[in-house]
């Protein structure tokens, strides 16, 4: 069987990640979000970066990386080993970070109602600036770690994922799970 047989179902965006397009019957569902879950250290962040890196290197498609955990500085540094020069891509407006990593040493207190509109505006701004077709959001758990696991946060994340569809970007959303073959926290998103 070849992946051509599957084409009628959902249009796929070839990731150009070596090997991945073959096993995924052509890549990731185009214009949609795909949840990537795995245990700690299973290279979710690397895959999320590679998705953008191969888009830039092989298809000249810009990408936006929304980071909820590691700082952009750490990601730039960590990916040097793969010869991905993220800083240069940022200068060329091929790669943009939306930095939502925690503020070290800054206490955050919650008083009253809020929403994540600011995050959505920042994401839209980055997509507009780069003309991005690809996006990685890494990882969902980082949002809950910063704001707590409330229905509000879940609903807001659902709203953001819906908005990504309208921006016509193909995205990967990573989520950590505590053990192999266990439910991951993000599955709760589906219930919202």
């Amino acid at each position, binding site marked *: 069987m070849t992946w051509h047989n599957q084409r009628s179902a959902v249009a796929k965006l070839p990731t150009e990640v070596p090997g991945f397009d073959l096993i995924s019957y052509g890549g990731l569902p185009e214009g949609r979000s795909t949840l990537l879950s795995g245990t700690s250290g299973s290279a979710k962040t690397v895959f999320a970066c590679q998705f953008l890196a191969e888009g830039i290197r092989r298809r000249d498609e810009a990408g936006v990386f929304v980071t909820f955990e590691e700082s952009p500085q750490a990601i730039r540094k960590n990916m040097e080993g793969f010869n991905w020069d993220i800083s240069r891509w940022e200068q060329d407006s091929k790669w943009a970070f939306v930095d939502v990593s925690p*503020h070290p040493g800054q206490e955050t*207190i919650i*008083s009253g*109602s809020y929403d994540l509109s600011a995050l959505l505006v920042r994401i839209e701004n980055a997509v507009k600036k780069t003309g991005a077709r690809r996006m990685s959001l890494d990882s969902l758990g980082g949002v809950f770690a910063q704001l707590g696991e409330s229905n509000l946060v879940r609903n807001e994340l659902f709203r953001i994922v819906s908005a990504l569809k309208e921006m016509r970007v193909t995205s990967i959303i990573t989520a950590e799970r505590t053990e192999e073959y266990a439910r991951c926290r993000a599955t709760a998103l589906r219930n919202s």
Partner: protein
Amino acid sequence: MSKYLLKLYVTGQTPRSYRAIENLRRLCEEELRGQYEMHVIDVLERPQLAEDEKILATPTVVKELPAPIRRIIGDLSDAEKVLLGLDLQPYAPISDDSSGKEESVDLA
């Protein structure tokens, strides 16, 4: 001279934004009259500022001065949390005695 520098980030002119502005202004007038500077920043108009400040949720107040920098997320309807978060202490008792804090506000 203002001692406190507060930046309030909101997204658009929504009821929630106005509520946060109103709550913060009232609190500042009651606790810090004449010694604060408050800036309201609309993320819709200044997305790059929100990016630089890493604003995730709105409304968010960032207390830039005095140190330490603190953030409060929400429409600031819980005054006690705001006082706590912003380290706002009543003007009168400038001593290491923090007992003045308890009786500081009655905003309900």
